[in-house]
């Protein structure tokens, strides 16, 4: 291919890159402007004055609460999911029992189902056990719905662990709990970190469960919180921009620092879609 051909290809790729990030850059720019500047100026212009007070205003106006809810609910669900998935994957791939393939199949079927089909019965179940408007319902729902994908990412790694390690540990009189928690689990750290990242993205961005199960502002997470919040600030674009930027910054930071893990996790989560 000639030089001109290559220049053309790079140009195409560059235009796509701009299409992919420009809306986010535009969002960041208007989060630092006020309405008169947004409505009269060019969408591409830098703010004449960086109005960081937009951020302070929305943070104190309630976004701070949603943010911390997102942090602890996301974090707790990640710990539960990765721990339970690791234990189940260990028992399924490393221990000897009759129905392990069948049980694994059950978990993998969980990858295919549309969550909306389960939503009404879930709502009713939580209503009956008084877990509606209780963040616990969100934590266990996130855990259940992310277990299949987490196990799928873990599986490959567990299958390749060498038998000798288990044999040696057991001959030395190591109990199975000790074998799992002290030897196997630390060995899976690389793949566990991938599942942590994927769970973080899913939980942080989840919307419909919180929207359905939680009604009090004090328990809402960012995705649902910003929905209400933006209704309030309907016409204040700067405030809306600041709210959205706050909600996406943690994930963007995770991406900047662990981009290879994110890429790995997203490619291995392909089946979930």
């Amino acid at each position, binding site marked *: 291919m000639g030089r001109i051909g290559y220049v053309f290809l790079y140009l195409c790729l560059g235009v796509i890159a701009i299409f992919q990030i420009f809306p986010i850059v535009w969002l960041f720019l208007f989060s630092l402007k006020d309405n008169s500047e947004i409505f009269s100026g060019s*969408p591409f212009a830098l703010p004449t004055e960086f109005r960081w007070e937009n951020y302070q205003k929305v943070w104190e106006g309630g976004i701070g609460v949603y943010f911390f809810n997102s942090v602890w609910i996301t974090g707790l669900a990640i710990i539960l999911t990765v721990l339970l*998935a690791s234990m189940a994957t260990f028992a399924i791939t490393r221990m000897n029992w009759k129905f392990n393939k069948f049980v694994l199949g059950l978990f993998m079927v969980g990858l295919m189902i549309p969550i909306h089909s389960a939503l009404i019965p879930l709502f009713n179940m939580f209503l009956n056990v008084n877990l509606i408007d209780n963040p616990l319902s969100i934590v266990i729902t996130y855990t259940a719905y992310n277990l299949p994908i987490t196990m799928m990412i873990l599986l490959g790694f567990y299958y390749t662990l060498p038998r000798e390690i*288990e044999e040696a540990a057991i001959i030395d009189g190591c109990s199975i709990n000790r074998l799992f928690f002290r030897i196997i689990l630390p060995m899976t750290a690389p793949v566990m970190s991938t599942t942590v990242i994927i769970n973080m*993205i899913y939980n942080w961005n989840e919307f419909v469960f919180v929207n359905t199960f939680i009604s009090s502002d004090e328990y809402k997470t960012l995705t649902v919180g910003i929905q209400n919040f933006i209704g309030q600030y309907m016409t204040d674009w700067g405030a809306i921009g600041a709210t959205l930027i706050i909600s996406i910054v943690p994930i963007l930071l995770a991406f900047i620092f662990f981009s290879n893990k994110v890429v790995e996790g*997203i490619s291995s989560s392909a089946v979930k879609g």
Partner: protein
Amino acid sequence: MNKVMSNKLVIALYVLPALLLVGVLIFIPLILSGYYGLMEWDGIGTMKFIGLENYSNAIKDLKFWDSAWHSLLLAIFSTLSLVIYLAVSLILASKIKGADLLRKIYLIPMLLSSVAIAQLWIKVFNPTNGMLNNILMAIGVDSPPAWLAEPKFVLFAIFVPILWQYAGFYILIYYAALKNIPESLVEAAKIDGASALQIAYKIKIPLIMGVIKVTIVLAIVGSLKYFDLIYVMTGGGPNGASEVMASYMYKLAFASNDFGYGSAIGFLLLIITLIVTVIIRKLTATKEELQY
């Protein structure tokens, strides 16, 4: 060794917590959804068994078929857009400098929540102050439409952020598959005088056919489940012009308190998704995957 590794009590302790959660919170609700579909029920009061009435109503319900049609349209759009993603991936995987950085840039929208994406694109499509109409007016378009308020444009407008959101995801998958093709195959074809296009058509695409089929299933099934973005951007409007199956179900249950009918629609969504998955798998199945 064998005795320790087949300790039934330990196995139960390790598997049951996860299995219970998945069973109680995923499988039982799915079955219940079909059962609630047989009821007349407002979500609070007692249920009344009405047999298959909800299901037969659904079949006669034009709004349901409209929403199913919109879901199908999104599925078609999404499948067609795979061609663009594949083309970009082919370029990206052909010894482009900075390919790794580019595919990461492409991936960024995929990391955002659908709510943030929807809110951002509501602003982009804003009729008077949005980025899109600002640009259109700057290049001389007189009165560009209010994209999300026009029934004839709304689905296309919604599809733009969908295209934007998933680009990086599919490019990532194709790129990884293309990078797995042994260099020797491509080199041999080049020596035989094949052009870049011929190499793409005759060698690269057939070799990653397995991956392409998986992405077709993902794109179609993913579209059938589409909800968050549409719910936030338009709420299914204007006048049902962007209603999809999941948003219609949600509205019936949580806005109209018609939990019985909503459950029936939810159950139909499950059945349709499973049937479509099986059909596409069958249609795209080949006797043997290509080996290289």
